[in-house]
Each structure stands twice: as structure tokens, then as C-alpha cells.
């Protein structure tokens, strides 16, 4: 018997009011993702990719529909509950890295622990280990402005992993990087996914999308095709 999907959305919709007109950013999206799966979400600009990722990342609430994360309907959670889900169960990797410019790499990686744990020694050791793992062991004390784009994205990945989440959400993780660096980052993300984490990635780059187990296509806020990748 197959295990329950880690992510399951049922008729998920997001509606914005533009003046008096209702605009569907996302319309009745039903999607399910298995534990450990690597899914790419693709589609043209304005197709609702980011809206879907925000909903999956609990940064936003749907206008209607249900979102079951490990069987729990998180659409019903309060703000504090959503913050906890983001903190413990999801790691974010952004296109623009979103590191705090005034903090060192080490402190940036520790940041999510500030909102979850209290034992500092434990946290800083874990952050150091993760930085080593992403190949930045020597650069822990550097600030983001002193690092290349690829290095910054590695810090972001280390930060995403620090609370050992089951799900990694990546929004155009290679969008701001040259192709060689992009390849390195993708390799790192795939490696992370192999540890049994679920990886969901938004991209508009077909060659990157094809590295996923499956591509989900969005068009005008609706799920158009789902294709299994090679």
C-alpha cells in the first residue's frame, strides 16, 4: 500500500480582487506530491507558479480549497501555526537568496533556529556542519556582500536545511546565476533531495525542469499537463 502523499491540494484557488473584478491567480488546482519526490512547476510568467509555491510554502492562504501537508489541513491554521510549519517542515530557497545582509553566513544559517530552539551551542555547530557540507566551511564568517551569487545560494540552501525539514521549496534557484554555477546548485539540490526530502521547484528553464521526477505545467492559474520526466 503506497504511503499517503506528503502534499495534497484539493481544488486550491487564489482569487484577487482587482477593483470589482475577481481575478483567479490560481484556479482549482489539485496536486499531490509523494514523499521524496522532486517536482518542477513550470509555466509562462503570470501562470500562477509563484502563487502556488507561496501557498505550498504556507506564506499565503488559499481563497478556497484544501491543502493537506502530511495529512494536516494547514489552510485552516492561524498565523502562528503557519509560522511554525514554515519554520520546522519547510525550507525555502529563493531566486534572490534573501539572506540578511548584515549577518555572517553562519548567523544567516542559524536564523531559523532562533525561532525554534534555544540551545545555542547545538545550533551553531549544526550551522557550521551545514556550511561545510555545502562547501563553505571556510567562509562562515563572511557576509553575503562578500560572497558570489553561487556562494550565497549555498548559504541559502544550508539555511533551508538547518531545521531538517521534510520539504524544500525552491523558487527559480538558478535564476540569478550563470549556467555553470546553476549546474552546481542543481547538483546540490538533487543531492539534498536524495536524502528523502521532497523538493518542489519553480522554474521556467526547461533543461532544469527536466532534472525533476515530474513536471507540473500551469497556464492561467490552472493545472494544464502533468508529465513524468525522463
Amino acid at each position, binding site marked *: 500500500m503506497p504511503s499517503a502523499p506528503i502534499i495534497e491540494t484539493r481544488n486550491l484557488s487564489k482569487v484577487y480582487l482587482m477593483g470589482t473584478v475577481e481575478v483567479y491567480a490560481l484556479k482549482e488546482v489539485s496536486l499531490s506530491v509523494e514523499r521524496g519526490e522532486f517536482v518542477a512547476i513550470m509555466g509562462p510568467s503570470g501562470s500562477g507558479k509563484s502563487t502556488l509555491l507561496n501557498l505550498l510554502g504556507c506564506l499565503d492562504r488559499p481563497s478556497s480549497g484544501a491543502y493537506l501537508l502530511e495529512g494536516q489541513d494547514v489552510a485552516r491554521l492561524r498565523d502562528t501555526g503557519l*509560522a511554525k510549519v514554515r519554520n520546522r517542515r519547510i525550507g525555502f530557497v529563493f531566486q534572490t537568496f534573501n539572506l540578511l545582509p548584515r549577518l555572517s553566513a553562519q548567523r544567516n544559517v542559524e*536564523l*531559523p533556529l532562533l525561532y525554534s530552539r534555544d540551545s545555542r551551542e547545538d545550533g551553531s555547530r549544526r550551522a557550521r556542519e551545514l556550511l561545510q557540507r555545502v562547501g563553505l566551511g571556510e567562509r562562515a564568517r563572511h557576509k553575503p556582500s562578500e560572497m558570489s551569487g553561487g556562494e550565497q545560494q549555498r548559504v541559502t540552501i544550508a539555511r533551508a536545511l538547518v531545521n531538517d525539514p521534510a520539504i524544500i521549496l525552491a523558487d527559480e534557484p538558478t535564476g540569478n546565476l550563470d549556467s555553470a554555477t546553476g549546474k552546481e546548485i542543481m547538483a546540490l539540490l538533487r543531492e539534498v533531495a536524495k536524502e528523502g526530502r521532497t523538493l518542489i521547484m519553480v522554474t521556467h528553464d526547461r533543461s532544469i525542469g527536466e532534472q525533476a521526477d515530474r513536471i507540473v505545467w500551469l497556464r492561467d492559474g490552472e493545472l494544464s499537463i502533468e508529465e513524468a520526466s525522463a
Partner: protein
Amino acid sequence: MSFLKTLKAAIESLGQSKLRSLLTILGIIIGVAAVIIVLALGTGATQSVMERFRFLGSNQLEIHSVSSSGMMSSSASSSGNPEAKPITFEEALGMEELSLVERVHISLGGSRIVARGWAKLDTSITGTVAPTTEELVQGEENSDWILAKGEPFTREDVEYEARVCVIGHTVAEEFFLDEEPVGQTLRINGIPFLVIGVFQEKPLERFYDPNNYIKIPISTAAAEFFGRDASVSVTADIVSEESIDAATAEIAAYLRERHEIDVMAGEEDDFDIRSFEAQAKAAMESARTFSSLLSGLAAVSLIVGGIGIMNIMLVSVSERTREIGIRKAIGARHGDIVQQFLLEATVLSLTGGFLGIVAGIGAIPVINHYSTSLFAAFAWHSLPLAFSFSFLVGVAFGFYPALRASQLDPIEALRHE
């Protein structure tokens, strides 16, 4: 999120823009320093009132004509009653005959030119009654009658309006450098007076010479210089503290009779009798009023300082919108963001409070050194007050910006450039 880590983060964040943080808390520094100084001035005023009344007995009454009311000696006082009759030195002397009055101290004075030969000096002339034997005892702190040479004048001198005088140290130095002053003659306003004694030198005061004075019999002062119906200031020693009220009534009855005031017919007294206790109380009261008035002003500057903090925190929130978005995305709760910004505001205002306390305490000796009329004494109770004030200002004015920060939508905030 642990409090200590948030605190550390707040201090680091503020330390990154030191000049701005300093300018932000300038208002608080000034406000708190003002509170410290105002309270020090209040305490100083209270202390000097206490000092002033320390030697005055609780069994004393002060009596004066309403035409020269209050503690002011000006007979042209606007609040005075123009119909009021003066209390003359004879009426004052008459009070000594009353059963509950042990003794009266009367004084009547002014400034006159004193001369001997070609030498001249502008000196304060005071007419008083003769001292009692107790007042002549050396070492009694409040005695004005400690003589270096000669004798004081007597009751008989007062009775017969004798032209005798006892001179202060400066007067003696001025006119009788190497001579023996006792037995010599001085002219006061042209009238010759026999010097019968010299007062012991008093310690110098900062702005006037306490040794430049002459005492003469009250009757002589009235007859020769100030007029027999000049209003005098009278202090009456009462037989005991318990009889203060009875003595007040006795003196009032005596003065009503002399001034022909019919209280039954609704006429008002033209004199005022007050115990020193009441006067001290009134003086303390006015010191306190003065203090609270200035405290109000200091509070205004604290509020202005608080608005400064609120302003800069709002700027900070909008500058750090993206940071707030990132923090929220990785799991910061509403309360975490509120705590972070509230703590920054509080650290700001408490730092301002601390610097303000330092500045205020530092200003106290400066005030005492340069001001002639103000005396400041550090008030311990101003410390907790200043600290809690600055804490409250930080919390009160930091709360709204913190709330604004916490209510930012994470998606919007992340998109913010």
C-alpha cells in the same frame, strides 16, 4: 525566540547605525536629564527651605501688617490692604506684656550712609530690641549677638532712644583700622552715634558682605530714620509650643484693640500672624509647585523624545521590510517580530535614559557652581523615575512601529526592494 538572543540582535542592529541611534535618543537624553535636574532643583529648594527654618523655634510666631504682607518686606505690596495700619515698634514692644508672649524680636531697617571724617560707607542699619542674657552666650548658633568687643545696648537704651550702635566687622575695619572702635563716634545719616560694641566676624557669603551692618536700638531707629509709625517685623517667642493657638488669639485681640478693628462688625484684620511651621510649610509647598511645574516641562520633552523614537522606528521598519519578510518566511511568528522591534525601541530609550541620567547628574555641580539663585541636590528617587520613564517611552512609542512590522504580509515584504 529567546529573549537574550533578541536583545543581542537588537543591540547589534542599533550599533550598526550609531549616529542615527544617537540622534534618535537625543530627545530622551535631554528629557531624562531635565527630569534629573528638575528633581534635583526641587530637592535643593526643599533643603534650603529646611535650612532656613532649622534654627527657628516651633514656639515662635511671626506678625506683620497686611500692608506689607507675606514674606516680602516691600510696604508697597500690591496684594496689601491700603487701609491697613502699620504695626509700630511701640505696639510690638507692647506685645511683650501679653501673658503668653515671653519675648518679642523686632526689627526695622534700611540702608544708610555712615561716615567718620571723610570716610563713608553704605551700610545696613537695623533697629532691634536689646538682647537677652541667653542671646549673649557664646556659641549659641542662632545668636546674632556674639560680640568681639564692647557691650550690647540695653533695655534702657531702647527705652530712652539712646544713640548707641554695635557695628559689624567690616564697618570696624573701614573706619577704625588701627584704633579701638568702642567709645568712638560714627555719623549715620549725619547723626552721631556712640560705638559701644563690635560684632564678631561672620563667615563670608558669596554675594554680599554679612559683616557690613550696624545695630541700633529699635526706638532710635524709628525716631531718627524710619518714622515712629513705620511697620516693623515682629517675631514673638511664646511661652510654650502648646499655647501657640492661644497666643495667636491673644496677640490678635491686642492688635485689634490697638487698630480699632471690630471683627463683630465684619471688619477684617489688617495683620497676619503665622507660626514658623506654617511658613515653612508654605515655602515647601511653593518649592513643590515649582518642581512639579518643571517636571511637566521635562515630561513634554520626554514625549517629544518618544515621538523621535517612534519616527525612527517607523523608518527602520520600512527600510527593513525585506528583512521582516525573510524572517517571517523562515518561521518568525507575529510575536517574534513585535519582540524584536519593541526591544530595539526599548534598548534605544533605555540607553537614552542612562545617558540622560549621566548628563543630569553631571549638570548638578555645574548648576551649583554658576547659578546664584538655584541650588540643586541630587534626588535618589529621580533614578528609578527616570529609568521607568524612559522604559515606558520606549515601549509606548515602539509598540506601534513593532506592530506595523509584525503585520507585514511576508509575500509583499519579500517582494519589497
